[in-house]
């Protein structure tokens, strides 16, 4: 058994045990279809529900930085907010970053999988959570990794590995490695009006320990549709950013030599 697979299984087991020990999920409650359009909940959405966003907005950076290993912190401090920001050139932001900040997505349930389609599809992409298979033995590193999930009652436990190391953990340009491991526990709360995602990120190569936080997404009323959002609307601006990014990358490579 590979280390990654072993850690995955242990983490899923721990998540499952934590759930059954600490949460008020009625026994035997079956999953109901969550298909719909969700948007990151704001203060008004959360008012009176008893739920709140952990480390909201840019404050998530502080939480992550407190868990970075020294090399990762040094790399973060050496980055450039434009040249190193993949989203600026309409490349993916990776799964760690975009949904936590301003996520809007369609949640689509189909046979054997759940598909999350983010509105800013060029940078956030499409995420598939497979319910009918385990991780491949050697997943090809990708921006959003390989996600598998299983239902425990009406809670979805999602395990994701197989990331590339091109994206950042959040907007402060906190790096991660291909060892990154994302664990999520998803459930509906507040009479089904909110989707709660409890997020745990591990990366033994970049983090001193795992960090955890919650995000809440408001289910939008029927009839509200997710609008088209194309990143690369203006190719001239895109080219200018891309050229600037490539030049800075080249300059840094020269300095290293």
């Amino acid at each position, binding site marked *: 058994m590979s280390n990654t697979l072993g850690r995955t299984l242990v983490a899923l087991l721990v998540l499952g045990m934590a759930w059954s020990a600490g949460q008020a999920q009625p026994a035997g409650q079956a999953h109901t279809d969550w298909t719909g359009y969700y948007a990151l909940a704001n203060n008004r959405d959360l008012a009176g529900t008893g739920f709140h966003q952990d480390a909201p907005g840019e404050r998530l950076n502080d939480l992550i930085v407190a868990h970075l290993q020294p090399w990762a912190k040094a790399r973060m401090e050496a980055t450039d907010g434009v040249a190193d920001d993949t989203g600026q050139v309409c490349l*993916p932001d990776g799964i760690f970053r975009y949904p936590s900040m301003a996520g809007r997505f369609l949640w*689509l349930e189909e046979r054997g999988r759940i598909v999350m*389609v983010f509105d800013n599809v060029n940078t956030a992409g*499409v995420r598939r959570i497979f319910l009918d298979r385990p991780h491949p033995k050697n997943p090809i590193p990708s921006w959003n990794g390989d996600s598998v999930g299983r239902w425990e009652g009406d809670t979805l436990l999602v395990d994701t590995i197989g990331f590339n190391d091109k994206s950042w953990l959040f907007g402060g340009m906190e790096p991660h490695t291909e060892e990154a491991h994302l664990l999520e526990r998803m459930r509906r709360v507040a009479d089904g009006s909110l989707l709660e995602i409890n997020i745990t990120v591990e990366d033994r190569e970049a983090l001193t320990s795992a960090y955890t936080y919650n995000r809440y997404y408001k289910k939008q009323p029927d009839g509200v549709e997710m609008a088209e959002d194309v990143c690369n609307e203006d190719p001239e601006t895109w*080219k200018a950013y891309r050229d600037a990014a490539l030049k800075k990358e080249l300059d840094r490579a020269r300095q290293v030599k």
Partner: protein
Amino acid sequence: MKALALSSILCVPLALAQPAHPDLQGVYQSISDRVTLSGGRENVGSPAAIQLLPEAAKQAKAVDLKKDPWKMCQPVGPFRMMAQEQTKIELVPVRAMIVMLFEDLSHGVFRTIYLKRGHPGKLEPTWLGDSVARWEGDTLVIDTVGFNDQTWLNDEGAQHSDALHLVERIRPVLAGAYLEYKVTAEDPKTLVKPYTYTRYYKKLDTEILDDVCQDEE
């Protein structure tokens, strides 16, 4: 009488269990123009064969092909995208809509096709337009309007107007192993007459991967 009543009880659930239309869920990939399927089915036509009105033809000639949306990692629009060889799509039918996801996200993006509403009275022009659909027997008929003027109709720089109207007809053939895809484009401001091409998409037992334009950089 008892037999009839029993038959009714048994038949009602069976009738309800019958799908009202084909289940299109799956991953599909367009076949090569060189392939002929059983029954003589093959790709017919191409966006390159559209006939432009004189003014539109003049406009196309003046276009800088270096500014092709394809080269700029921009959406290219359904008419052009669906004609490409090897285009890989995933169809996700849920409730009142079918979502069409493209492996090549930058050029295809994704389309939301609504089954339970008509086009809104006032449409904000978009890259992919507004798509609504209905079933005609085993065929999904998609009607799309409301395009912006940023996409081209073909690789040769053919422009279209805001009057572009696409009608796509999708149905499973050969026992569901393939989808037949026919699209008709009409645009009275740029096209001499409506143009239709046909593509066949093979159903795959695979997953769609990340495919990011400019990723090699």
